[in-house]
């Protein structure tokens, strides 16, 4: 590939994954996967069930320690962060990578607003003098808390949950909970937002709203979006860059148009006859 038509994610990556492998005992869930996530892109990681998508995700967000490989988060605001060396909470606090979960993980007994306040814990905690100052009413905790409420209010507005700010998160409808989880992740002011199947269980209308939200995050917030998705309509419509995994290996990487017509991808998703499979094996 020449320099002129280098893809945006190779030119300006926020996250570079090199030779990532993950073994669980004798099982290889992810096998030597390398790719880049562009800093102005919505990048989608797709693949059939059991392809290793969530494992890649958990390696990036620190919930697994990769067996091999190097995950470099480009440090625009400092030195590059090597994610494989950080623990899960440092990846959010230090490298500013936020994530959501496939099965929603909100704090159900806390209100919507409290959920967003917990997301801003580290900044608020410093402002409160690690509680020692604020317990005696010292310091600038009041101002910091007001700013935190403003940020929470902004994101509640973005996801359309402002009227429900004081309700328990567990009492929200499913689609609202999904959007609240995204708002909560955004309240940590991430540079990379990782979404694990954000459209799962959403109806067509909610799915459209989600697309608009993700595009807004990419365009306005200086946050790269990296998502796992099963729903092809979401993937093809909003992603700038699609990576396809199958059996732990990367089988395609490119724009949605390129990936859609890739014979390996079609084979992985639809299956092929034995002769075609042999022909595919022979291709580079």
């Amino acid at each position, binding site marked *: 590939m020449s320099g002129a038509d280098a893809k945006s994610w190779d030119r300006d990556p926020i996250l570079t994954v090199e030779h990532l492998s993950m073994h669980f005992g004798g099982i290889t869930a992810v096998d030597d996967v390398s790719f880049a996530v562009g800093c102005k892109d919505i990048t989608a990681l797709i693949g059939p069930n059991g392809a290793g998508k969530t494992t890649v995700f958990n390696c990036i*967000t620190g*919930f697994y320690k990769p067996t091999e490989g190097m995950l470099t988060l480009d440090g625009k605001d400092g030195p590059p962060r090597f994610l494989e060396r950080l623990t*899960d*909470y*440092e*990846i*959010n*606090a*230090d490298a500013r990578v*936020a*994530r959501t*979960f496939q099965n929603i*993980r*909100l*704090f*159900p*007994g*806390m*209100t919507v*607003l*409290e959920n967003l*306040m*917990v*997301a801003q*814990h*580290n900044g*608020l*905690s410093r402002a*409160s003098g*690690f*509680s020692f100052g*604020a*317990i005696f009413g010292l310091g600038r*905790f009041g101002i910091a808390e007001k700013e935190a*409420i403003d940020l929470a*209010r902004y994101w509640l507005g973005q996801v359309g949950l402002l009227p429900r*700010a*004081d309700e*328990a998160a*567990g*009492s929200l409808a499913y689609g609202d909970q999904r959007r609240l989880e995204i708002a*909560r*992740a955004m309240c*940590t002011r991430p540079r990379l937002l990782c979404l694990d199947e954000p459209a799962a269980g959403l109806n067509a209308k909610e799915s459209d709203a989600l697309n608009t939200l993700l595009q807004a995050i990419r365009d306005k917030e200086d946050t790269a979006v990296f998502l796992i998705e099963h729903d092809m309509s979401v993937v093809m419509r909003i992603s700038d860059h699609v990576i396809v995994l199958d059996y732990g290996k990367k089988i395609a990487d490119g724009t949605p148009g390129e990936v859609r017509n890739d014979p390996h991808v079609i084979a992985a998703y639809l299956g092929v006859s034995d002769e075609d499979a042999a022909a595919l094996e022979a291709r580079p």
Partner: protein
Amino acid sequence: MRLADSGKTLGRKLSSALGDSLLAATIAFALFSLVLGLRTVDSATGLALEPRPALLATVVAIVFFGRLALNLFVWQTDYPLTRPFAKLFTLEPFETRDEVTLALAFALGVLGVAAGVLFQETLYGLLGTLMLAFIGIGLLRRAIVRTFPNLPYTQVFVAGGILFALFFPIVSYALESAFNLGLPLRYWFDLSILILTYVMLGWGLNIVVGLAGLLDLGYVAFYAVGAYTFALLATHFGLGFWIGLPIAGAAAALWGIILGFPVLRLRGDYLAIVTLAFGEIVRIILLNWTEVTGGPNGIAGIPKPTFFGLPFSPFAEGTTFSGFFGIHYDGLHALIFLYYVILVLALVTNLVTLRLRRLPVGRAWEAMREDEIACRSLGINTTLTKLSAFATGAMFGGLAGCFFATRQGFVSPESFTFIESAIILAIVVLGGMGSQLGVAIAAIVMVGGFEALRHTAGLQAIFGQEFDPALYRMLLFGLAMVAIMIWRPRGLVSSRAPTISLGDASAISGDLVRQGRG
């Protein structure tokens, strides 16, 4: 529903009720035939079995007819007899038949009281009084709520409770010295000091169990660390209570962190077992490290707190409290002072907890209880958060321990057994995990109620002279716990108050709040 019920003929209803009651009576017979039906007595030839058929028959008959009455008048009827009584505590309007039932009940109550007064039938008198009190309280509550529907009742209740706690000793002492009423003041003050100590311990443990969701079965260890720290400092270095207090708190907090480290990776049952072991280890060390702790003999001669340097004593060198204020010496002064010390300590515990809940660390505790993995994904260091919860809870335990040492003047390992941990945990669970008000009520009910069962005179008047209520304390205690767990499985106050809101936030139902998995 109604149609189906009325379709059931009286005969079928009766037969099904009879069958159910027979079954209950059979179970009662099987259960009680050995427990109540036989009794071992000392005889010349050794132990002998004495059958008690009359008692067994009475109990089985009570079960049979009680169950039959419940079936016929409550469960299998369109109009349960309990409905009007339940309605008393709502704002629903009464129907005519409700009024008739209540009027009949009222008349029964009056009859009972009359029987009690005229014929010295204490049991009937007591039951009648209870009935009248129940109806009276219900009607009064209805009237008040109907007249002032928008009063913040919880706040009024809390404010009333705090005012009572603030003025009760002074007012009762003043009344006693003015009119010589013969009130058992010493006993009252001792009991209220005990209750307040448990309120404080409950609030301290509430941070660990209720807010952070970490099940701690060894909380008494921190109580012991605080007590022994102050006991050793006072007897070896002559430190006073007010200097010993913060040191005891810091020592307990340190031990909270030391316990916290090994258990960071444990959750749920495993955490409970390790904390239980920690509590026992501390007690056994105190028991066996004789050179330092005095072993089973404990440490005696711990000084009482002074009133800003003025000791409470009839004869001391220098100025005493009574001498300084020019009043007659009374042993109760020291007790009243101790009461205020523990009241202030408990209120400080409460205020600090309420404040911490609204600070980032408190929200992180609660978030950790709700979902620890989500917490980590948001950049919260759960290790530090857990340790801070352990340390804060332990610190309040240590402060309470320091108070305990100075109040008793003596500490020994016997005061720090597992049952203490269990009682404190029961207070937290019974009160509703995370609720400050619930924990306070639960402490008063548990410690005060337990104590009330000691008062044998009233109960003996009902059940006869040979009845010893002290024997049934544990039984009644267990029954009360079972009843509360049936009717209020999430504790007395199960809802959670939000810590921040944009508009008016209402309490969150306890069903949504998670209890933590350790």
